[in-house]
């Protein structure tokens, strides 16, 4: 690149990625989960916060979650949100500077464990809503 040529910030950033360890699969995974999240998050916001504006209760959520589609919506959202969020956090951390290969592997595992805990806790909450209905009905 000739000195002083303005290649634009985006082009510069994309080029810098090629010299670092942000893998191709990670690039695609972040985008794929992002596209799915657009649909899932919009549905989540609409059904929980717009369509029933501020009239939520444990019983409402429990009843709604008996539907197969809502179960898939919530579980899909849970996994996608943690995957996308932690992959994004990883990318931001890597952008601060090149880590050693060992540190990078360690980071991946730390984020994987954090995500696992988050999804596990989310699933327990999901079960609490499902189970309560079984006991009540």
């Amino acid at each position, binding site marked *: 690149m000739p000195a002083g040529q303005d290649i634009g*910030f*985006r082009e510069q950033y994309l080029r810098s990625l090629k010299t670092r360890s942000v893998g191709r699969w990670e690039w695609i995974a972040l*985008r794929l989960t*992002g*596209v799915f999240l*657009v649909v899932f998050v919009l549905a989540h916001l609409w059904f929980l*916060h717009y369509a029933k504006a501020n009239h939520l209760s*444990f*019983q409402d959520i429990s009843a709604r979650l008996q539907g197969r589609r809502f179960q898939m919506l919530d579980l899909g959202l849970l996994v996608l949100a943690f995957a996308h969020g932690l992959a994004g956090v990883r990318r931001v951390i890597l952008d601060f500077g090149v880590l050693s290969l060992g540190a990078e592997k360690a980071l991946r595992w730390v984020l994987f464990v954090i995500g696992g805990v988050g999804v596990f806790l989310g699933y327990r909450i999901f079960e*609490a809503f499902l189970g309560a209905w079984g006991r009540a009905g």
Partner: protein
Amino acid sequence: MTNRNRNLGYYMWLAHRITGILLAVYLFAHILTLSAALRGAEAFNQTLRAFDNPVVRAFELGLVAIVVFHMLNGLRLIALDLFPSWSQEYLAFAVLLISLGVIVISVPFFF
């Protein structure tokens, strides 16, 4: 990442990062508050009632703003990957305008 060009694209990139980090933090906060459900229906409804005030609703509206911006800007980034010839600036302005529109339309849902 030295010698950054401080153009609109840079600020959109920065905003995408900041909103992304905020959303990741919120994701954990969201799961933690929802975990009141593990202590039973009454504990959960009590938590909901505690959150039912103007301050939290303003916070939620801000959250919607962050989500919508991050969502639209993410779609803009994908569009630029797929169609590099599209104007980055026009798309950026579209993202900002639509985000603003959604926030304004959302106000009556929260207050």
